[in-house]
Each structure stands twice: as C-alpha cells, then as structure tokens.
C-alpha cells in the first residue's frame, strides 16, 4: 500500500510539474538555471557563431528579394554546436520542458539583437517567427548594460529569465533566455 501511495504521489507531482506550474514556481526554477547559464555559457564561442558573410547580408535590402538576408544566414558549425549543447544541458536541469535560447547583439547594427540558437520546444517571449534580427528589447538592454538577471512575465502564462553571457575579457557579449510556460501544450510548434 505504501508503495502505491508513493507512486500516486510521484505521478501527481510529475503531472503538476509538466502541466500546471504556477508562475512563481516556474520563475524560481528558471532563475536558478539562468544563474548557472551565466557561469556555463562560453561568450567567446558565442561571438564566433555567425559568419561574416551572413552579417553582411543581414540588413541588405533588395526590393525583388525579400528573403536575401535569410537565404544568406549562415553559421560556423563548431561554435554553434558547442554552445547549443551547453544550452541543451542547461535545459535538462528542469524536470519539465524548458528552452534556453541564445540572444546576441548584431555586430555593426546598433540597437539590434538576434536570437542565434533556439531549442526543441521553440519557446520564446521575444522571437517573432522568421525574424533574423529584432530591435533590442528593453529588458534585454538592461541585462546587457547592467549584467544582471531579469525575469519577464509579459505574456500570460509565460516566464522568461534573461541572464548575461560573458566572454573571457569579462564583457557581457550576449544573453540567454531561459523560458517555459505554466501550461504545457504538446501540439504547439509541431509544424
């Protein structure tokens, strides 16, 4: 009987963890992952990801070719994979679906930022589908300028914790968005 009760308790806890966490619970868990992320993510590797050519095309305008930037987006595979794996490991720290996204300011484009690595569940409070680069969001600006974590709960049911990423010089070169939702949707982003 005891075994059964323990089993039932565990099942209920898992259910809660996957489907209906409160925003406060989520915020605490994500903040812890974000804190670890700042320690673990290699800012120098992050800076090596985008190719020079991709940057050159990123804000190129061609009236006959609206996809010229996206078609020429390219990355150096080695640092990309290295950083992505770190982000994936960080996501595994939670027993529920979490994505850890990498955001980097766009070199040569003041006030612009790009998501550079997304992950399995494609969660983000900031990324607009298909955008190569976007205007720097105020909470991200805070993270980059003040080198501190910021929690964002702008979209109902979503929690993102933004945390700084440092390079070997100690500069903040980017940030991670550790993100999840209070309600899990198994169908979302299967497309």
């Amino acid at each position, binding site marked *: 009987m005891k075994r059964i009760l323990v089993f039932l308790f565990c099942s209920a806890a898992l259910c809660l963890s996957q489907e209906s966490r409160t925003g406060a619970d989520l915020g605490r868990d994500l903040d812890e992952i974000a804190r670890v992320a700042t320690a673990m993510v290699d800012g120098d590797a992050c800076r090596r990801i985008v190719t020079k*050519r991709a940057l050159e095309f990123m804000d190129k305008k*061609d009236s*006959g*070719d*609206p*996809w*010229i930037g*996206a*078609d*020429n*987006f*390219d*990355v150096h*595979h080695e640092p*990309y*994979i290295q950083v*992505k*794996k770190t982000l*994936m*490991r960080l996501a*595994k720290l939670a027993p529920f679906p979490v*994505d850890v996204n990498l955001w980097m300011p766009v070199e040569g484009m003041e006030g612009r930022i790009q*998501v*550079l*690595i*997304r*992950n*399995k*569940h*494609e969660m983000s409070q900031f*990324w607009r589908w*298909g955008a*190569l680069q976007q205007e720097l969001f105020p909470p991200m600006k805070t993270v980059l300028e003040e080198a501190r974590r910021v929690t964002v709960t702008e979209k109902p049911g979503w929690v993102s914790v933004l945390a700084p990423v440092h390079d070997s010089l100690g500069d903040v070169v980017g940030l991670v968005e550790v993100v999840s939702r209070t309600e899990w949707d*198994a*169908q*979302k*982003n*299967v*497309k």
Partner: protein
Amino acid sequence: MDPGGAILEADRIPGDAGRVLTRGARGGYVSLRLVARLARPGPYSLDVQWSDAGLESDLFREWFHWTEPEKRYYPDALIPVKTPYRSELPEPDNRIPKQSAQSFWMDVWIPATARPGMYRGAVRLEADGATVTRPIELTALPAVVPGQEAVTMDHNSYGSSWIGGLYPAARARGGERFFESDEFFSLIHSYHRLFHEHGGVFHQLGYGHGGKVGLEYAPELAGTGRNKRVKSWRLYDRHYGPLLDGSALAGTRRGARPVPFVYLPINPEWPASFLWWGEPGYEAEFVNVVGEMERHFREKGWTQTVFEVFFNHKKRYKAFPWDGDESRFPEDNKYFHEYARLLKKAVPAGSPVNFRFRSDSSWMMERQFQELAGVVDFWVLGSSMVSWYKDAPRMLKQRGDIVWIYGGTPSVQASAAAVTFAPFQCWMWDADGYVRWLTTSPGEDPWFRFEGGDTVMAYPGERFGVEGPIPSIRLKVQRNAVQDLTLLESLGKSRGIEELRAEASRRYNGAAAEDWWPPRPEIAGMPAQEMTNTTIGENTTAVKRLEETVNAGSWVELRKWILTLAAEAR
C-alpha cells in the same frame, strides 16, 4: 459562376470550346456544373435521376466565398448534398443579398466494371410552381483509367494543432484528451480519405523546426544513450496503423490500400538527441530506435509505403546549424551523408520496409544530384529551377530515385484551369509527383472574408455537419486533370509517350514540347550563394510564361483529344 449566375471572367472560354463533354472513361469521373437560376427569391428543389443503373453521382453545393481584395464572390468549397436538394435563394447560410443563382458540382463516377455505352439521366429544377428538366447523356467509353496515377499529387500539411482550430465543436467535445481521441484520429484519416479519393496523397509533417515531435507522429521513447528504446507504439499505431494497412481508406472508390508515402518523425533532435551529435551516443540512439521502427513496420507488414526520412529545418530558424530543407551551403551536404550512414546501419540490408531519404532541393540541386548520389533517393525539386536541368528527372529516375516537384496552389481568383498546370508540368517533365506545400489552411474566415485559398484545397466540413474535410472545386479539377493524364499515358504504349507529350502540350497551351525545357541559363552553373531570388526569377520567365498561357479552355481542348484517343483505342 457568381451568385448572380454569370460566368467569372477568368473562367470564360474563348470561342465556343465550352461544350460540355458528357463522356468519360470507366474507372473515372465525369464532372458537370449545374446552375439553378431563379427569377425571384424563394424555395426551389434540384434533383438528378439516372434512367440507367450503373453510375454513381455525387452532388455538391458550391459555396461562394467573399474575397475582400476583389470585393466579389468566388465559388470553391463544395458542400455535399443529398438529392433532391431543397433550399431557397438567397441561400440562408451563404448570406448573399440578392443571390439569384446557385451553382452545383456534380461528379459522376463510372465504375471500371460499368457497361460501356450510353447512360441517360435528367436534372430537374422545381421553383415557383414550375418544373424545368434537362436531359443528361453520358457515354461510358470502353477504356479504363488505370488505378495508378500518372502523377502523384501530394497535399502537404504541418502538425495537428490546426485540426483543433478547424473543428472547434469536436475539439470541445474531446476536451483535454482531444488529441488522443478516436474523433481526432478519425479526422486525420478523413483527410487521407478525401485526398486519396481525389487521386492524391496527404502528408502531415510531425515535428517542428526545433525538433519537437507531436505525440501521435512518433513512438514514445524512454531512456538515453545506449538505453534509449521505444517505450510505446500506442499513439503511433492508432494514427498510422489504419493508414499503413489500408483500412483507413476502405470504402473509397479507389479502394482500400496502404497510403503510398508517409513522413517519419526523424529530425536532428529525434530519435537521437542533438546533445550527443558527433558522439557515440547519437549513433546509438539513432540506430537503436530506427532499427526498432524497421522491425515494428516489418512485423506489422507495413511494406507498401515509402517511409520518408526528411529534414525540414533551416538554419535561419535558428535551431540547428545546417539546412535540411532547400540547402544552400555546400558544407551542409555532410550531414546528409552522416544520416545516410546511420540509416544504413539501422535498417538491415534487404529489409522489405521501404525507407527513403528525401531532400527538398532548390538552390544547389544540381550539385546535390552529384554529391548526394546514393544518399538521397527521393528528390522534391523547386518547380522553377528544375527547368534549367533538362536531364535531371530522367537521370535520377534511371538510378532508382523518386522525383517530385514542389510549389504552391493557384488561388480561386485564377482561372479554374490554373490548378491543372502543376500536374501537367510534372507530366511533361517526366516527374513522378508534385507537392503542394500547404493545403489545409483556409485562413481566418474562409466563408465570409476569404484570402484566396492558395494554402487550402480541403475545407473543414464541421459547419455543414460533416465530420471531416469537404473538397474544393480546385481539388476536383485537379483530380480530373490527373485522371485524364493517367488515361493518356496508358495510351502511350501504342503511340509513344514523347509523341503524346508534344501533342498534349500543343493542345493545352499551344507550347511546343521543347518550350518546357528552355535553354540552360548561365546562372544554372553558378554557386548557389551567388544566386538570388531576383536572378532566379529573371531566368525562369520562360516557364512562368507557359503557366500564364493557361486559360479556362486549356483543359477542355486537351480532354476532348484524350477522350477521342481513348475512344479510338482498342
């Protein structure tokens, strides 16, 4: 036809070529448009009766979609109705002020076993105390349309969340478990049935750009590394079992048969976690799980379907460092090689299960034909750029590869015959099939604020009491075109396929056979990264011109000739 009974400008046939041909081959459809036009608003009834037994007819009411940009109505969705059909004008649910005409699409199915010869019937319209009768004479030719289409028309979709959105009542009934309910799987199967019945196939891609897999698209996995295994086939088998054994298609006129193609859920994040990419764990997870899939499929006898390993992700969507879809960078080809190696390791040589490695290629297709020979064996090629590589379809097919083309769907504003271009183009190019990249997305309000329908060929039937999709005029026209091409190709055994192609092209849009393969432009040999959509557009105008010359009469002329050939054939 508009709600006032006038033929839409794009569908007016030049000259007098618009004579309705009431004959057809057996094992095929003849379609008619019927218009009930009333002098004043009020009730009416429409009935179709056949004097001779042996044919089967289906009647559909045509929905008039209001399109905001043009501020006019176009018919497209087809609502199945029973005969006699009794309603009134204006049709209450279509809400068109001053509607004075209602058009209907009638399909007449001539079974392959039907007696050749004349069948007589009549259409009867009753309104305002008067009755009008129009006779129908339909000749069933001795020729039989072969069961295997000359061109596979594929209708693509992504995931399942759209089903919940398009069927709100079913979604509400199913509650939180809707996506595991019998009703949900029945809806999925109903889409397969509809497209199958219309001579085509249906695809649902079951994973996202980041690698998240829908629960019903993959077996449930457990463990990690060398211990990663299939935990449960429960949802996968409920989804795919009836499709792969053919039972989901039972009761259709084309008959129960396993679906010919299906995507696998394989992507860079499934079944192996990308966390282990380049490490032994990746290979272990991939080989273990894909090996289990092969065994499961083999044990179930699912050996008549092509299981497609297909990568849909793009690096621009920021989840993986390489392009699986429409690759543009040569160094990305190395990933294809690696997955081919893993697949070879997972699937035993000589397996009766038909795994194929599919690549949707455009920018560097010619380079990939060479570098991925023996790796990719299912090519889905960008429709405009294929015209640069005349020898490609034949070369690829000679080495055993499947060759499809991909592209979009003409909107309702185009002529009714525009939808015939893709299958005809495929047939002229000797390609095996054509993927319409999205065919289940009708837009926010297809009924009263339509966006044109270039991403839909099957509408949700729920508002009309149909628990599944309903067809469109464009789907019907496409089906009939494929049917005619299939019949024509069967006649090629005696006449020679090239001769048939040349004459068919001349009759279709006045083009010579060689016009379908314009001279290879200089850009065709350039590195992909030096191409832009602008330069591609500038170098594919010849094929676009061919499409622009298609008008409402194009298929009428061609069909007349095909049926004449069929009537003469022995």
